[in-house]
């Protein structure tokens, strides 16, 4: 029952919707509710946008990688990775409303949204190496209509 997928794409803002749609399309085999799907799309969008803006400073020649696992227990595991500038003081970064780019009208709500829509959020980051955001979520187990 385990299913796994990994994809990498150019760090361009056009690909934000591509990335969240792709994860949603993979997750849809779990028959999520529409709201679960919307929430998953939102967290993917947050993490990808962070990689583009903060990780790569909008350098479109770089790549972002998303790893997506549906476990045998129908849990969703997502990892969004960049090889960008990384960050220190992760706890401070994750505080609601904290942003290092207020001039770009960032709201500082990205990590807060990830934490509230997912069951588990872990951030690994090293300056000049990159950032990896691991997200986990158990989905409601609705019976599939058709196999």
């Amino acid at each position, binding site marked *: 029952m385990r299913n796994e997928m990994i994809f990498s794409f150019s760090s361009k803002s056009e690909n934000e919707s591509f990335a*969240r749609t792709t994860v949603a399309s993979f997750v849809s085999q779990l028959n999520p509710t529409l709201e679960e799907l*919307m*929430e998953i799309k939102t967290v993917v969008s947050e993490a990808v*946008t962070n990689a*583009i803006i903060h990780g790569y400073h909008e350098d479109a020649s770089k790549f972002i990688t998303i790893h997506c696992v549906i476990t045998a227990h129908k849990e969703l595991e997502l990892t969004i990775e960049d090889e960008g500038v990384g960050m220190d003081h992760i706890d401070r970064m994750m505080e609601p409303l904290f942003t290092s780019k207020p001039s770009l*009208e*960032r709201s*500082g709500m990205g990590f807060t949204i990830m934490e509230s829509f997912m069951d588990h959020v872990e951030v690994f980051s090293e300056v000049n190496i990159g950032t990896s955001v691991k997200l986990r979520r158990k989905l409601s187990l609705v019976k599939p209509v058709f196999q």
Partner: protein
Amino acid sequence: MALHINFQLIEDVLFVHLEGEVDHHVADSLRKAWRDEMFGRSCFNIVLDFTHVQFMDSSGIGVILGRYKEIIGRDGLIAVYGMNETIQTIFYMAGLSKIIKVTDNKEEALSFMGVDVHAK
């Protein structure tokens, strides 16, 4: 994903009708279109129509907050209607509901703005 933006002036209220998905990719054009229209008309009473917005993330929150800051000093108000459940959650999470009036529909938004709906 594209975002279509349409503006409509009803008395002294500027309606911003959005259609599509609001994310970082479209944030710049939304900001620019909104500012051009708002400053061009010197109209700082804004109603955001989210009826046809399927998706919004925190980049959208940033654009709305940015406009809010330009509006408060100018005696303007902002209201919104038509948000889906997930967008509404994000809206509340970011505290936007404290500064922006969440209404159920266009009529309610207009009457919050002090426009007499029945007089029309």
